[in-house]
């Protein structure tokens, strides 16, 4: 039993570390590890993933709030769309064939991956608008953060707020209905659609995904999908890993984070697409 717990803690440290840096919940990493390697039933793997998302989010957010990297206004503003999406997703269970959603969301992620590659090639990380976006000013979404790598404060502006809200609503539906991909879509909405820099995007995604996951976590908690023997050591490991990851992230360049992010986006995108056409 000690060995099993230690193994789960180790898996958690890894998932929390990666999740904190990339703004992902880790479900996409954890579900295959738990089901294929550890032989965990898919029902309990999903339950453990939901707890994992919350642990990653809470563990990383502590550091990101202290470092002032994340954008709390953007988080709360967009969270309306995500939580509404999660609620509609839960209500839509059984109404919509998840098959089409897998295809749609898979393609969206591939498109987002393509956009990120374009950003890598063009070497343009921060957007400066000639004309400030009206909605962005109205909701005070423009902000700044101190970039350790560049050694300076970076002011940024965001744009395409309605587009960002739409993708966030979709992200909510995806997490409520399919139980996956909520972090990847959040980063996509902020980075690709709203043109927010990558570091505030991944750290804001970290804060948000915990709130979105909490909305659906009670369902899993009360229907017995969350097995304490799996979820507890995993969550403890993740809390430690996420703290470590959030510290390392400060000293990583946005470019290198993006380089890790792109293959993962393609992996998740192809995975979802294949699930849809199967």
């Amino acid at each position: 039993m000690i060995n099993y717990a230690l193994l789960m803690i180790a898996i958690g440290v890894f998932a929390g570390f990666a999740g904190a840096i990339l703004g992902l919940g880790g479900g996409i990493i954890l579900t295959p590890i738990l089901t294929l390697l550890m032989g965990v039933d898919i029902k309990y793997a999903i339950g453990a993933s939901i707890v994992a998302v919350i642990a990653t989010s809470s563990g990383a957010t502590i550091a990101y709030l202290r470092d002032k990297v994340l954008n709390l206004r953007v988080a709360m503003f967009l969270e309306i769309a995500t939580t509404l999406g999660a609620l509609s997703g839960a209500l839509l269970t059984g109404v919509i064939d998840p098959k089409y959603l897998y295809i749609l969301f898979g393609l969206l992620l591939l498109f987002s991956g393509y956009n990120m590659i374009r950003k890598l090639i063009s070497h343009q990380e921060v957007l400066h608008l000639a004309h400030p976006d009206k909605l962005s000013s109205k909701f005070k979404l423009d902000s700044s953060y101190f970039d350790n790598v560049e050694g300076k404060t970076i002011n940024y502006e965001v744009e395409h707020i309605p587009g960002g809200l739409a993708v966030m609503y979709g992200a909510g539906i995806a997490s409520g209905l399919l139980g996956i991909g909520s972090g990847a879509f959040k980063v996509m909405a902020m980075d690709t659609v709203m043109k927010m820099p990558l570091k505030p995007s991944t750290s804001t995604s970290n804060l948000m995904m915990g709130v979105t996951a909490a909305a659906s976590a009670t369902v899993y908690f009360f229907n017995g999908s969350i097995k304490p023997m799996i979820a507890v050591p995993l969550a403890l490991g993740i809390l430690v890993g996420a703290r470590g990851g959030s510290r390392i992230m400060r000293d990583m360049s946005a470019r290198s984070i993006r380089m890790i992010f792109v293959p993962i986006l393609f992996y998740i995108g192809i995975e979802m697409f294949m699930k849809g056409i199967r």
Partner: protein
Amino acid sequence: MDKDTKQQTTEEMADVQLIIGKILRLGVLVSATVMLIGLLLLIVKGNGGYPNNTFPTDFTEIWHGIAQLKPYAIMMLGIFLLILTPVLRVIVSIYSFYREGDNLYVVITTIVLVILGISFVFGILR
């Protein structure tokens, strides 16, 4: 927005983020401690305290289990506390925006909390 107000907003945000960070850290510490106690107890006792490796999933069962120091009951309480940490984050954000006098964001964050509340009720009923 002119430069002064932008600067002011940034500074206010810094304060708010520090307060939220502190309260969130406390919440995470409490849930992690409860989970850790449960896990250690499980390792010491060698079983979760329930027949056939089952575990409690409603509040009554969990409370009864905690009173008898059953490892799985304590672990489930820890998980539930962890699930509450994002909710705590939203509540503290409302308070902080209120203290800053940012009514727009008090409203926005309250809407998030209400939607969360509806989801919780939905989760319990389903």
